[in-house]
Every structure is written in structure tokens, then in C-alpha cells.
């Protein structure tokens, strides 16, 4: 999944908005943004943070600076060293797909911050916080906490490809007022675009999807 391959594959599959959300890190985000510059794919900087409770939270921002800020905070609260034999090499690449380094930290681990703090931090940095794959049996806010507390203000709840819309409506009827979105959560090129949401926007951008999450000014996430 190199930056150029991601940009090319996304373009091929007609994906117009792509958020790069690596686990506990954002070091490859800029490279993908650059690699996609000449294409029709708008790349948004992001990260998937794993909280102390082992809840995955997607953070998406308008530009690079806030995601790198989040990265510093995450790194500060992330213990352990990666074991390349067990977990593979954590490659840092540039926009020409050249390996420029390796990340040593244990990115697969959990950040020593509560999910509430993480969502707060994302909002302070003016990003959107999405509860990852809430239907999954692991790493979802519901599997870990049983339910989403009132005080935890996610901007959207994500459904994985494992659950259909009908079933999701039934299972999550308690969260009927929330915005639900689908994302591919692609860990390889084949998966890019396998699970998506359509948005009604003026043009593909962070601010437009932020409005769509809030159902503001006619922007919205299209019903399945």
C-alpha cells in the first residue's frame, strides 16, 4: 500500500474522498496527499487512535498540522517498541514510494488516554471524531463499553462491511439520531472502496463532510 498505489487505486475505483487513517500514526499522510495531487482523489489527513479501553477512534482533519499535533500527543502516550518479526516493519514512505525510514514505536498498542480525552483532543484540534466499526466485536466503543455514553460526542458512527443496513438500523436503533457512515477500512489495495458512503456535497472537502455529518446547509450522508 504505497502512496502512489493508493492514489492510483482510489482513482481507478472512482473514490473522490479518501481519508488516510493509520493506526496511532500519521507519518505517511503527507506522502499520500502529494501522490494524489494530480488526480481526482481528495485526500484528507487522519489517524485511527486506539484508546486505553482499546476503542478505535477515527480522527479526520482539514490539514496536516493538526494531525501531526495529534501524532505528538499519541506518541507521548504510547509505550513499547515494535517487534518487526511479530508485527512487520512500520515503513515511512515519501510520495515517490521511496522508503525514507521506519517507525520504532509499538503502533499496534493502545494509547494511554481515555476515549473521552481522545475525542476531546480531536475536537480541540478542529477535527471530526468517528467511532470506528461500532458493529465489530472488538475495538469498537460498543464492544468495549457496552454502550455509547451521552457525554461521548462522536461526529459519526462507522459501520463495517460485516453488517447490512437493515440489521444496523435494528441493532443501533438507540443511536438513531446519530450519523452513520461506511468506510472501507482498507488494509490492502484490494479493499479500497469495498465499503463506502455517498455524500451530498458541493465539492469533496473536509468542511463539506463536516457539514454533512451535522446535516447542515443541505449537505448530508446519503441514506443507504
Amino acid at each position: 500500500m504505497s502512496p502512489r498505489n493508493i492514489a492510483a487505486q482510489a482513482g481507478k475505483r472512482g473514490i473522490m474522498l479518501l481519508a488516510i487513517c493509520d493506526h496511532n500514526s500519521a507519518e505517511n499522510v503527507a506522502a499520500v496527499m502529494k501522490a494524489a495531487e494530480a488526480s481526482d482523489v481528495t485526500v484528507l489527513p487522519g489517524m485511527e487512535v486506539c484508546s486505553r479501553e482499546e476503542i478505535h477512534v477515527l480522527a479526520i482533519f482539514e490539514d496536516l498540522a493538526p494531525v501531526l499535533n495529534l501524532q505528538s500527543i499519541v506518541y507521548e502516550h504510547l509505550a513499547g517498541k515494535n517487534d518487526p518479526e511479530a508485527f512487520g516493519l512500520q515503513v515511512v514512505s515519501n510520495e515517490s514510494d521511496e522508503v525514507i525510514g521506519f517507525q520504532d514505536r509499538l503502533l499496534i498498542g493502545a494509547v494511554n488516554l481515555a476515549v473521552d480525552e481522545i475525542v476531546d483532543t480531536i475536537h480541540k484540534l478542529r477535527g471530526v471524531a468517528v467511532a470506528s466499526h461500532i458493529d465489530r466485536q472488538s475495538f469498537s466503543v460498543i464492544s468495549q463499553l457496552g454502550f455509547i455514553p451521552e457525554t461521548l460526542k462522536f461526529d459519526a458512527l462507522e459501520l463495517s462491511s460485516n453488517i447490512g443496513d437493515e440489521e444496523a438500523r435494528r441493532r443501533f436503533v438507540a443511536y438513531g439520531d446519530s450519523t452513520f457512515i461506511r468506510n472501507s477500512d482498507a488494509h490492502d489495495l484490494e479493499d479500497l472502496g469495498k465499503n463506502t458512503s455517498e455524500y451530498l456535497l458541493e465539492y469533496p472537502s473536509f468542511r463539506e463532510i463536516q457539514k454533512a455529518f451535522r446535516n447542515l446547509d443541505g449537505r448530508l450522508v446519503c441514506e443507504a
Partner: protein
Amino acid sequence: MDEQVSGGYASDLLSDVIANSKAGNVWVTMQVHVNIVAVAVLKELAGIIIVQGRQPSEDTLRKAREEKVAIIVSNLPAFETVGRIHSLLEGRS
């Protein structure tokens, strides 16, 4: 903890505790999030034992006081904590 302890349940997934614990169980966990109190009330658990010396957050303690849910912190890891409680419970029957 004045409650009658009916047994115990050890899990860090609240969804699992909601599905599988029994009323009167003492719950052993390393989760400190405020939701643990709601789960204990929902399932009528005898109380919560937090392991590894982890500290419940302020809002968790506040909620526990409001709901009258007993929270105990053990400095031992989960395995040893469960072992000791299990022996205690077996011993008394």
C-alpha cells in the same frame, strides 16, 4: 460490600459482561471508564474489583457513589486476583 456474592465474572469487555454476568457476581476488570458503574447497576453485580492497581477516574468514582456501587482496587494482576477470590468463595461453601 454488604451484598451477597453469588460468584464472580472476569472480563474487560463491557458488552461481554452485559451479556454473560449474573446478578450478585463480583466483577473483576481493568476497565476504569465510567460505564462500568452503569453495567454493574444494570446487571445487579455485587461490586467491581479493579486490578493491577489501576485507578478509577473521578467521574467513575462519582457515579459509583451516586449509584451505591462498591469499587475495590487490587494491586495484583487479574489472574492472581481472580484466583484469590475464587478460593475465598469456594472456601466458604
